[in-house]
């Protein structure tokens, strides 16, 4: 016993080192592949959120002109497809009534107050929280394409897991063939690209084709822009293609985003759970 104590005392700093590393790795592994997991503390808390917001209030002025231009383009786009986000519920005799259309997706404007693009576990913080009814598991789109999915929110801020996070996965479709696959952010990707897997190799995927969201999990409407095909790799012996895409959204300059609330999401989830 005495010898053991002496041993521990002699190597006390090494044991301390192991102890601290253990804490770090518990945090690390409890966050891996956990879609629903709310991490211990992230940039959506009030102090870091406040600091980031103050800083982005200043830096936001520097690219105001290009942001306004993008918003104009997006506005024009949205006007064109206003009807696309509504679900037609009257399916027998058409009656002229406002209740024919039900608004399915609500959009909330938000501002990105901090974002990282260089690491493997990147993050984005936006300046809307539970006060504005932003909840975990809502889609976030930017002015050009999808950004990510909210994972945890405080009263005023929300942490978004971006497309450029190694745990991100979303079902997408190839616009021309309507065949679907999953978009992932692999190790060979930087913040401008991503990889679509699970598209069968008989599908004719051409360079520059559009890849859109499938809307299957109710986080995004069907047909939100994800990216354009950059290269197609047919792996010998595999039945699926490996499609590299250029992301529509430029993750090095994002500022204005919209959070999507799907009013029918609960219904969709109930339907899915009844199935099982």
């Amino acid at each position, binding site marked *: 016993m005495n010898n053991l104590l002496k041993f521990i005392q002699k190597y*006390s*700093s*090494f044991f*301390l*080192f192991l102890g*601290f*590393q253990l*804490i*770090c*790795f*518990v*945090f*690390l592994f*409890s*966050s891996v592949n956990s879609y629903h997991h709310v*991490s*211990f*503390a*992230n*940039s*959506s*808390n009030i102090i*870091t959120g406040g*600091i*980031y917001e103050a*800083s982005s209030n200043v*830096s936001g002025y520097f690219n105001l002109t290009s942001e306004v231009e993008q918003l104009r383009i997006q506005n024009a786009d949205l006007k064109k497809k206003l009807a696309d986000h509504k679900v037609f519920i009257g399916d027998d005799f058409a009656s002229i009534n406002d209740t024919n259309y039900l608004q399915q997706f609500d959009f909330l404007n938000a501002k990105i107050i*901090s974002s*990282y*693009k*260089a*690491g*493997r*576990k990147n*993050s984005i*913080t936006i300046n809307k929280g539970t006060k504005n009814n932003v909840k975990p598991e809502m889609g976030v789109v930017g002015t050009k394409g999808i950004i990510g999915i909210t994972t945890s929110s405080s009263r005023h801020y929300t*942490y978004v897991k971006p497309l450029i996070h190694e745990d991100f996965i979303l079902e997408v479709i190839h616009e021309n063939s309507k065949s679907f696959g999953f978009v992932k952010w692999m*190790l060979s990707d*930087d*913040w401008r690209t991503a990889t679509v897997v699970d598209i069968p190799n008989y599908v004719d995927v051409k360079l520059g084709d559009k890849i859109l969201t499938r809307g299957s999990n109710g986080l995004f409407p069907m047909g939100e822009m994800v990216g354009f095909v950059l290269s197609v790799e047919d792996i010998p012996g595999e039945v699926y293609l490996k499609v590299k895409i250029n992301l529509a959204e430029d993750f*090095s300059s994002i500022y204005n985003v919209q959070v999507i609330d799907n009013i029918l999401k609960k219904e969709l989830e109930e339907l899915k759970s009844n199935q099982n």
Partner: protein
Amino acid sequence: MNPIIKYVLQFIVLILLQVLVVDQISLGYASHFIIPAVYFLFVLMLPLTVSNGVLMFLAFFIGMMVDVFKSTPGMHASAMVVLGYSRPYLLKLIEPREGFDILKSPSIYSMRKDIYFAYVGLASVMFHLWYFTVEVMRFSDFHVILLKTLCSSIISVLLIILMQYLTVKRK
């Protein structure tokens, strides 16, 4: 100035510098490989008399703070603990024959320039190597880890030396 207040200020300033300035530097395509960190300078600047336990705790704490800011799960803290643990060995390794002046905290003026350069350089390589290894978490992509470590370390050391010349008073 009271040394405690001085170190608390250094702590806050270095974190803010890291997340609000250094992380916002955009280098185009190169920023996929160059991800500089300067906040670990806090641990390098602590006085030589500080005990191992306190050193490691402070390293862990500043790493955790940066983790919270960047929403990374414990990765910075892990790399900082490695740095805190190995600092005494690092100092022993590069100690000149006449030894260090134990009353001064390590800075570019209290040490010989080449020794200080080796100190920051080795610490930076160690920090980045551990960080990127934890981040990628597989050894099949070791060349990516090495490339990132090399590029990021060079830029980090340059930034730290620059900061030393701009902020530390010559005595």
